[in-house]
C-alpha cells in the first residue's frame, strides 16, 4: 500500500513538477530533483515567478499525508523536493498575513478534504482525530522522546521529557508499590515505584509515553531500586529540566520492536512476550491508523550526545552596575526577563554536533525495512533540525526565566 506512494519506480523522473499558489494565482514550473539547489535560491525563484520580489513569504507544501508543512530552510526544502510525488504543491502566504496555525497534520485535510483526500490520504485515515497544530519550525522544540531503544529490553521504555523552557508542568505523580521480578530463586515480590497519576494537560500526559501504573525503573540512568519514594521524588525533581525515566509500561502492547518485522533476526530477546509484542508493533507500523495514535516522536530523533545537555542548565548571573540601587534590583529580581543586562553563560553546541545528530538518527531504524517507518522518519528531521537551531535561541529565553 505504501509502496505505491513511496517508490515511484518507473515514474521516477528527474524533474519535479511544482505547482505554486499565491493568493488566487497559480504558477507551474519544474525543478531538477537531483539538483534542487538551496532554499534561498528557491525562495528567490518563487518571488520571481510570482512577480512579488519584495514580499516576505511563508512557503508551505502539501506532503504525502496531506499535511501542510513549511519550507523555510535547506533541509525541509530538500525533503519537500525529494518526496514530491510527482507534483510538489506549494502554498505561499504573505508573512504578515500568515496564519501560523495553518501548518499541521490534517491541516489540509480539513480544508481541502475533497481534493487531497482522494489523492493523498490513506483510506483508513482516522478522520475523527482532531487536528494537531504544528507551529512554525522556529518554535519547534523537542517535548519528549523515546531513547535508547536499541539497548533496552523491549519491555522497557526510556522516555525523555524536555521540561526546558516550557510553561507546561511535568504533571505526574509517583507512588510506592510492589512489582514481581524473576530471580534465580523464582518469582519475587519487590518494592517498586510507580506512576500514580497524570495531570491532564501536563507534559507527561501529552507525550502519551507514560501511563498510570507504569513502573519507574531508572531516573536519568540511575536505578531506583532500593531507594525510597522521597528519594526518587527528589531525584526526579533534581533532574526535572531534562528528565529521563525508564519505565516498564503497564500496557505492554505498544512496545517498539527494534529489529525489522520481516527480518525475524531480533531473537536476542526471545521472551515469551515477544510474539504478542511484535504483532502489536507490526500493527503499529504497518497501518497508519496506529501511526495516528502513536505520535511520530516515538522515533529517537535526538542524538544520544544530547543526554549531556543538562550542561546547558546554566545559572543566571546578573552583574549589577556600580551604582545599582538595592530597591531597583529588588524589583528586577522578579522580572529578570525584562532586565536587559544579563550574561547567560551558555554552553552552546556548535552546528557540527547537530549535523552529526542527524546522521546518528539513522542508527535507530537501521533495519527499517518497513518502508512506512522511514516514511514517518522522513517527515521528522526537518523540525528536528529546526529544533537544533531553535535551541540556540531557546536557551536565551529559558535563561531569562
Amino acid at each position, binding site marked *: 500500500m505504501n509502496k505505491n506512494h513511496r517508490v515511484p519506480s518507473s515514474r521516477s523522473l528527474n524533474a519535479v513538477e511544482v505547482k505554486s499558489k499565491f493568493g488566487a494565482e497559480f504558477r507551474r514550473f519544474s525543478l531538477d530533483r537531483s539538483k534542487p539547489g538551496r532554499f534561498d535560491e528557491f525562495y528567490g525563484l518563487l518571488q520571481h515567478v510570482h512577480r512579488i520580489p519584495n514580499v516576505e513569504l511563508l512557503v508551505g507544501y502539501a506532503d504525502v499525508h496531506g499535511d501542510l508543512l513549511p519550507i523555510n530552510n535547506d533541509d525541509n526544502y530538500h525533503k519537500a523536493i525529494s518526496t514530491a510525488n510527482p507534483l510538489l504543491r506549494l502554498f505561499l502566504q504573505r508573512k504578515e498575513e500568515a496564519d501560523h496555525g495553518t501548518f499541521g497534520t490534517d491541516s489540509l485535510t480539513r480544508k481541502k478534504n475533497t481534493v487531497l483526500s482522494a489523492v493523498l490520504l490513506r483510506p483508513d485515515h482516522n478522520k475523527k482525530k482532531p487536528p494537531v497544530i504544528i507551529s512554525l519550525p522556529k518554535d519547534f522544540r523537542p517535548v519528549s522522546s523515546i531513547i535508547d531503544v536499541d539497548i533496552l529490553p523491549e519491555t522497557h521504555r526510556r522516555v525523555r521529557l524536555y521540561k526546558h523552557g516550557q510553561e507546561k508542568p511535568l504533571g505526574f505523580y509517583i507512588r510506592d508499590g510492589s512489582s514481581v521480578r524473576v530471580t534465580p530463586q523464582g518469582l519475587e515480590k519487590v518494592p517498586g515505584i510507580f506512576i500514580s497519576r497524570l495531570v491532564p494537560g501536563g507534559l507527561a500526559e501529552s507525550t502519551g509515553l507514560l501511563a498510570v501504573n507504569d513502573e519507574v525503573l531508572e531516573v536519568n540512568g540511575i536505578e531506583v531500586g532500593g531507594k525510597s519514594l522521597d528519594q526518587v521524588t527528589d*531525584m526526579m525533581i533534581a533532574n*526535572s529540566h531534562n528528565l529521563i525515566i525508564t519505565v516498564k509500561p503497564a500496557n505492554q502492547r505498544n512496545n517498539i520492536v527494534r529489529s525489522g518485522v520481516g527480518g525475524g533476526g531480533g531473537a536476542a530477546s526471545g521472551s515469551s512476550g515477544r510474539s504478542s509484542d511484535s504483532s502489536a508493533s507490526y500493527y503499529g507500523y504497518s497501518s497508519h491508523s496506529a501511526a495516528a495514535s502513536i505520535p511520530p516522536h516515538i522515533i529517537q530523533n535526538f542524538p544520544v550526545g544530547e543526554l549531556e545537555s543538562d550542561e546547558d542548565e546554566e*545559572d543566571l548571573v546578573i552583574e549589577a552596575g556600580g551604582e545599582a540601587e538595592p530597591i531597583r534590583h529588588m524589583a528586577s529580581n522578579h522580572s529578570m526577563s525584562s532586565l536587559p543586562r544579563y550574561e547567560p553563560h551558555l554552553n552552546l553546541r556548535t552546528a557540527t554536533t547537530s549535523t552529526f545528530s542527524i546522521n546518528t538518527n539513522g542508527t535507530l531504524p537501521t533495519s527499517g525495512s518497513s518502508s512506512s517507518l522511514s516514511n514517518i522518519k522522513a517527515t521528522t528531521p526537518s523540525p528536528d533540525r529546526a529544533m537544533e537551531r531553535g535551541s540556540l535561541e531557546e536557551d536565551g529565553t529559558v535563561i531569562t526565566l
Partner: protein
Amino acid sequence: MRAFLEVGIVLYTLVSVLGSFVKTVEHGFPHQPSALGYSPSLKLLAIGTRSGAIKLYGSPGVEFMGLHDENAAVTQVHFMPHQVELVTLLDDNSLHMWTLRGHNGLSELLEIGRFTLTGPPGVTAVLAHSSGELLLLGTEGGHVFVVEVPGFRELEERNISLDQVSSRNLEHVEALQENPVDPDQVIIGYGRGLMVIWDLEKKLAIQHIPATQQLESVCWTEDGKYILSSHSDGSYCRWMVGGQDMNEEEKSDIPYGHFPCKAISKIVQLPTEEGPPFLLFSGGMPRASYGDRHCITVIHGKTHVALDFTSRIIDFFVIRDGPQRTDPSALVVLVEEELVVIDLQTEGWPIIQTPYLVPLHSSAITCSHHVSTIPLKLWERILAAGKHQNAHYSKKPWPITGGQNLAPDPPQRDLLLTGHEDGTVRFWDASGVCLYPMYKLSTAGVFHTDADPNDNMNQGTEGEWPPFRKVGCFDPYSDDPRLGIQKIHLCKYSGYLTVAGTAGQILMLELNDEAAEQTVEAKVVDLLQGQEGFRWKGHTQLDIQEDPVMFPAGFQPFAVVQCQPPAVVTALTLHSEWKLIAFGTSHGFGLYDYQQKNSVLIKCTLNPSDQLAMEGPLSRVKSIKKSLRQSFRRIRRSRVSLRKQHLQEANARLEAELAEMELAPVQRKIEARSSDDSFTGLVRTLYFADTFLSDSSHNTPSLWAGTNGGCVFAYMLRLPSVEHRADEPVTAQLSKEIQLMHRAPVVGIVVLDGHGAPLPEPLEVAHDLARAPDMQGSHHLLVVSEEQFKVFTLPKVSAKMKLKLTAVDGSRVRRVGMAWFGSSRTEDYGESGLLVLTNQGDVHVVSLPHVKMQVQYPCIRREDVSGIASCVFTKHGQGFYLISPSEFERFSLSTRCVVEPRCLVEAPLHSGCSNQHQSQPDGASSTHRYINLEVSLFSSLNMKSANCIYKKRVKRQRSGLVDLSVNMAV
C-alpha cells in the same frame, strides 16, 4: 592529567590518613531512664534505660555504655558487692551479667552471661548477695530462687519455695534484703505485707513479720536490729528483729497522714556517727492535694524537707562517707528527666552540680552552635561568669568518683552553645567526654514577657506542710515561645555574641566581667520594604524593656534589632572585624552596623506571588494546629465510641480505614521548582568574605546571601577606614545576583582562596591563628544547594565545577560544615573538606576545591528527622546530633580529633584479703609500659574500622594485641 593526579592524592589521604567515622560518646541525660544502681565499692553509678541501654558513670570522664541485644527496658540494675560485675533485669524477664574487663590498659563493659528463669513466673526482686557468688531472685509466684553467679547455675536445693514459708497465698516477692551484719539472713517481703526473715544456711524461716498493708519496700537498718517497711497507704513501720515472731510493729506512722496518702515506694534509714539517723523515703504525699508531686522526704533530727522534683522519680540512693563510711554525704536521685545530687552534709542541703548527665533539655533545645579552639582568655572569662551563676550550688566535690580517666587532656578548648525555647543560651565545655555546663545566658530580661519575674521556683511559703522544696532544673514549660533562640554566632576572638530568636529579634551581646545596668537600644527593621498586600498573621514582636536593666556578669546585650514582620530568624552571621551582623528571615535580609548601631542594608526577597508567605508563614502552623485539634477530636470521639460500641465494631472500622489508606497510597508530585513556589524568598545562609567581587585586582569586603529559591545575592561593602569607622557610614551595593537554574535552596556559601582553602574567620589572621588567605591566585565561590555543590570563578561568576548529589542518589543536603582534617601520621599535614549531612542521614566528606565526593558513612537513621536537623559539625571533623531530646551523640570523622571515653576501673580490694596482693586488675599495670605504644596503634585501628559504631565498641574485637605482636615481629 595533573588535576586527576591531584584528586587521586586527595582521595588517598582523606580516606586513609585523615578520616574515619566513629561514634564516640553520648553527652547529656539518657532518654527514658528506667533503673538505677550504685556500687559503693567501685563508686560507680549505673543507669538502665527503657531502650535497653546500660550506662555506667564514675568520676568525670569515666563512662561506659552497653546495649542489650533485646530491645527491652532495663527494670533493675544491681552491682555485685565488691566486684566489677553487675546484673541487669529486663522487662522481658531475662537477667544479664556485665563486667568491666581490662583490655589494653583500659576497661570496657562486656556482657558475659544471660539467664532466664525457666517457667513463667516473672522475676520481681533481685538481691545480689554480699558473698558475690549468689543471686536471689524473687518471683511473681512468691518463690525465691537462688542462683550461683557468674555462671547462672540454679541451686535448686537452696530455693525458698512459698510452702516452706507459709501456707497462705502471699502474692509476689516485693522485696529482698540482706541483713547488714549477718549475710546468712535475708528478709523476704511479700506483696500482701508479710515479711519473713530467712536463714540461708539453715534453710528455715527465723521470724515472720505480719504487716497488713500492701508492701512497697523493706529496709534493714545498719545494725541489723530493725526492719523498716513502707506500704501502699503511705505508711511506714519499724519492726524489731527478735528471736520470736511478734505481731505488733514497734512504730508505725503515716507521715503526711489524716487524709489518704499515696504509697511510699522506697524507704531508707541510715545512721550517722553522732546524732540522729537520716530517714529518707519517696512518695507518701496526700493523695488529693499533692498526689501529682514527685517527692522524696528527708528527715534528719528536726529537719524535715520534702524535695519536690519536676519529673517522676525512678530511684534514689545515698552515698556515705566519713571515717567509718557510714555518714550519709549525698543523696543521688534519678528522676525521669535528670539526675539530682543533694549534699546532705552542708547546711541547707544544697545541690551538687553534676559534671555529666546534665539535662540538656531542661528547656527544649532549639538550635546549637559549635566553636572550636577557644582562646584561653575568653574561656576563663566565660567560666568566671558561670561561677557567679553557680553560687547556690554546693562547694563539695562530685561524690561519685569511681574509675580513672586515662583520656589525654583535650588538645583544645571547644564550646558548644545550645539555644533553648525559653530564650536561654547554654555554654557547654565540649572539649572532652563530659559535656560540662559552663555558663547560662538568658535573653528574656531584655523583653517584657508574660512571665512574672518574681515567680521563683525555690520560694516556698512559710509553714507549708508538707515542707516542699523545689529541686532540679528540668522545666519544660516555656513562658513565651517567642523568646526561643533560633540562631547563634559567637566570635571567639572578640567575645561578641549574636543570638536571634523566634520573633525576629537579634541581640548583640558583649562579654562583661562585671554586672552592669544597661539600656538596650532597639532598632526596628522593616524587611518588606514597601511590599504591598502582605499581612502578617503570626505572633507580635517582643516588647523591649525601656528602662535600664541590670545584667549579671557575662554576656550583656547592647543592641537589639527587631525584624518586621517578626518572623523567625533563619540566618545569622557576625563579622567582628567589620563590626557587622547580617540576619535573614523568610521575608528578606538585613545588614546592621553594631558599632554605629544603624542598619546598612535591607533587602526584601519576598516573591509577590508567594501566596503562603503573603499570608504569613504561621498559617502553616495554624494548619498544624487545626489538624492537631482534629486529631484530638478524633481520639476523643473514638474513645467515646469505644465505650459505647463494641470493640469489634471499632476494629472493623479501623480495618476499613486501613483499606481506604491502601486505596489511596502516598503519592508524590513530580514538578520542577518554579519561581512561584512558596518560601522562595526565605534566606537560608549569609556569609561575609573579603574577596574579588568586582575585579580581579582589588579585593573588597562582601556579603553573600542565599535563599530558598536558589538565588544568591552578593553585595560589595564599603567600610570606612579604621579612624573614621565610628562616624562614616558603611555602605553596601548589590554587585551580583545568581539564580541557580535548579532553584534548590542554597544552604551554604564559601569563598575559597587561591590555594583552594576556605577563607579564614574574621580576626583569625589578626590573632596569628590562621594563615592569611592567598590573595594572589584567583578566588572561587562555592555554592552549596540542597541538591548540588557548585564552584564558580570570581570575580566573573562562571560555573567551573559541580557535584550533583540529588540527581545521582536522591539525597539532599541538610547540614553542611567546613572542617580541617589533620593527618594522624604527620603533625603538620591537613586538608580542608566539606562535611555534609544528607536527609538520608549519611555523612559525606567532599574534598575542596575540586568538589569530589570522598567518603560516605551512614550516621543517623533517615527517619530521625529531628536528629538530622540538630546536627552541628565542628571545625575539626567532629559532629554532634541529638539522639533524644536530652542527648547529643558525638561522632568523629577525623583521626586526630577523637574524643571518647578512655578509662580504667580497678576491681575493689576485698577487705578480707587486703594484705594478699591481688593480681593486678586485668594486668593493667603490667602492660603499662605498652600503653603508649598501644594507644597509637589504637588510633590506627580506629582508622581501619571506619564503620565501627560506638554501641558495638564495647564488643570490639581484640585485634589490638594481634597488631601489637605483628608490629613487634616486624
